[in-house]
Every structure is written in structure tokens, then in C-alpha cells.
């Protein structure tokens, strides 16, 4: 399958944006999820939450309008939308852990067939690693969407039966959006909902480390 195109990071973000319902309160994690705010469909309004105490985060600040007391979780100066609010870090995570957010979109290193997530440390990496807000967010948010490439750079599946990387949370992932597929985690296992344009369900299964359930005709993703 060398000639088949996989989705770009921007296209993964574009597809994941379709998982956000109108009016939702949403937390976006580091990496691909951080691109999603650029791809919200017309007519959809969502309110972005930041773990450092912002609800109603707007676009990134342009040159000249930065205020360094108004940054997102990645330390990037941002703006506010009308109706925004500030609060302390404990209340910010009360919102994540307590199930008050509708959706969190997180990056991932591995997701298991049961929905376990590993996204904070690569085994053997130098230094301390860092957890940040990921465990609170994964634990409490109603819907957790993980955006990641389907396989590692070496071609190993990132969707697996059991995670081998240090875990972020158990049974917390609802949906996985990759450069090849949209997959739902269900009590009965992983269900292949969509495939990337030109890809077949069988080809996606070959690159997945856990069994996928799918119907005879899995629809292709709609991308602009």
C-alpha cells in the first residue's frame, strides 16, 4: 500500500473537529488536537477550556496583541470570546475531573482495545517526563477523542490489545481519529466507523494491533 495517501495532521484535526457538538465545552490537548480550533464547521460554536483557568478561549493572539498573562496550556498567547471567564487551576480541573466538560481531544502514543490511553511518557526517554493535566482530563471527561497517527514511524500499530507504554488512564477513550480511520471504543470492542479515502477496512485492520469490527461497506471520511 505504499502509494496510498494517509491524512495529514491538519486533515486528522479537520476530521476530529466533526466530533464536536454545537455548544460543547471542549478541552484540546497538545499536538494534533491543538490544530482543531481552525477547522470548526460553519454554524458550530464550541467553548474552549484551558487547564490554567480559562473558559471561552479564542484564537491565538496576533503579533502586537499578546498579553502574557493570557496564555493557553502550551504557553501560547491567546484571545477570548465574548462570555469568557477566568478561575483558578483547582476549579479548572474540577471541570475536567468532575465530568463538566463535554469533550476532550487528546494526543496519544497508544490506545488499547478497551480504551486505555498512554500519552505522557515514552519508555526509555531521557528525563523525568511530565503528566500535566492529562490524567485528570482523561479520567473525568464524558467523551475523550484521541487524535494520532495510526502507526509509529517504524510502522508499529499504535492501536493495540494492551498498552505497553506508561498509562495515562484506564478505559477512558471513546473515539480514535487517525490518519487512516475513525474508530469507536465500545463494550464489544473496537468498531471501525470510517476509513481514509481510498483505504479499505481490511487494509486498516492489517495496520491495527487489535481486532476491528466493521460492516461490509465502511464509509470513507468526508474531507474538504
Amino acid at each position, binding site marked *: 500500500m505504499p502509494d496510498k495517501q494517509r491524512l495529514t495532521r491538519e486533515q486528522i484535526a479537520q476530521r476530529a473537529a466533526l466530533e464536536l457538538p454545537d455548544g460543547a465545552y471542549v478541552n484540546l490537548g497538545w499536538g494534533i488536537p491543538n490544530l482543531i480550533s481552525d477547522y470548526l464547521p460553519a454554524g458550530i460554536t464550541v467553548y474552549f477550556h*484551558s*487547564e*490554567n*483557568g*480559562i473558559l471561552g478561549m479564542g484564537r491565538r493572539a496576533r503579533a502586537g496583541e499578546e*498579553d*502574557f*498573562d*493570557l*496564555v*493557553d*496550556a*502550551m*504557553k501560547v498567547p491567546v484571545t477570548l470570546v465574548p462570555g469568557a471567564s*477566568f*478561575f*483558578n*487551576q*483547582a476549579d*479548572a*480541573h*474540577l471541570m*475536567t*475531573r468532575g465530568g463538566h466538560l463535554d469533550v476532550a481531544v487528546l494526543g496519544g502514543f497508544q490506545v488499547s482495545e478497551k480504551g*486505555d490511553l498512554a500519552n505522557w511518557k515514552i519508555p526509555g526517554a*531521557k*528525563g*523525568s*517526563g*511530565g*503528566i*500535566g*493535566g*492529562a*490524567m*485528570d482530563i482523561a*479520567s*473525568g471527561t464524558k467523551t475523550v477523542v484521541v487524535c494520532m497517527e495510526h502507526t509509529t514511524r517504524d510502522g508499529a500499530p499504535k492501536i493495540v490489545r494492551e498498552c505497553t507504554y*506508561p*498509562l*495515562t*488512564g*484506564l478505559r477512558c477513550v471513546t473515539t480514535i481519529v487517525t490518519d487512516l480511520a475513525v474508530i469507536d471504543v465500545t463494550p464489544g470492542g473496537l468498531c471501525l466507523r470510517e476509513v481514509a479515502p481510498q483505504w479499505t477496512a481490511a487494509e486498516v485492520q492489517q495496520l491495527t494491533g487489535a481486532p476491528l469490527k466493521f460492516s461490509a461497506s465502511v464509509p470513507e471520511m468526508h474531507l474538504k
Partner: protein
Amino acid sequence: MRHKIFSDIDAAIADVPDGARMMFGGFGGAGFPNNLIQALARRGTKDIFAISNNCGTRDGELGILFKLNRIRRIIASFPGPHSNHFQERLAAKEVTIELVPQGILCERMRAAAAGLLGFYTAVGVGTEVAAGKEERLIDGKRCILEMPIHADFAFIKAEKADELGNLTYRLAAQNFNPIMAMAAKTTIVEVEEIVPTGSIDPESVMTPAIFVHRIVQAKGIRYAG
């Protein structure tokens, strides 16, 4: 009448002893008590047990204290991509770290502030964070016991204090500061401005004066990166 205002920042921190347990506010470059941290570096306090979200940004924030090898233990959530002085001390085994999920770090401090002796949470179950912690089922959910985090001192940053120590914060610069202010025995705040008592609308007070013991006015310092 209590007098909380110190005109000399070095005098405000002069009694911080070696081995002190200390909380430091700040997140993402905002709300760090950098003037107080630098005063502590000048004073030479060593063997500090620090509690902070991150572990410094190059020489900035807690970076200077790691560079000078003054911190022996730290509880943190996200050391950060520019915590090079910390990472070097960690590799040399000159400091130990307990990594804590960010919201649980907040709640453990809040438990200390609130006189609670611990709490159960599902966060961290089945991960490295759960190692050595009591686990039980509540309502059929696996959860672990988390203990309070106390401190002798909190160094925090606010925008404005009145002479009694009522505080306000600016934009997203409050982050950990209001929580740490409540959790430490002695809270020392650096502020941009000290205003007369009564000039902050009581409805706008974000940290009530009961939690604030010493006040220093200093122009805030921000470290890029």
C-alpha cells in the same frame, strides 16, 4: 493591627530556613513570584522541598534554584520543556521528584488548606501514579487514596493587594496562586501594586486577607520560552 507590608523583599523572606517546604505559584510563564524566588536565591536557603507545577524555565522561575542546587525534593506535575537545570540535577541524583496529576496536585493542596486528611480519586488508577497508594472500590469504581500536601511557606504572585492582604489576580495569571495561598502556614505575596485598605471592592477580592501574611511590592518579571 497586623503589619504585613515589607518594603525590603530580602527582609520578607529572611526567616526561610534550610529544609523548608515551599509552594511556588505560576503556570505557563504567568503568575510566577520571580522577585521572591530571586530573593530566596540571594539568601542561600538550601535543601528546599519544593511544590510547584513545573521545574523552571532555563534560569527563570525555579530554574535559578536548581542551577544553584538549592532544591533537594520536588512535587510537580509537568517539569516542562525548558527545565534543563532540574533535569541535570535529576540525572545527577541531586534531586528527587514526585510527579502528580495537575488537578490532583491542586486538590491535595486544597485538602491541606481545608483541614481534610485525604481523599479518594479515580485519577491515576492503574498508572505509575498509583504505586504504593491504598486502592479501594467506591460505587463500583476503582480509586486511590491521595494525601494532603502542606507547606511552611507559599511564594505567590498577585496583581494587587490592599494593606490587609486582600488580593486580586490578572487574567489567567491566578492559576495555582489562590490555592497555595490557602495551603501554607506563611504566605508571602509579591504584587504589582499595594492599594489602601477598602479600595478593593469586597465582591472582587479573590484571595481573602486571612490567607496572606506578608506583602511585597515588586515589578513583575516574566521569562520567555
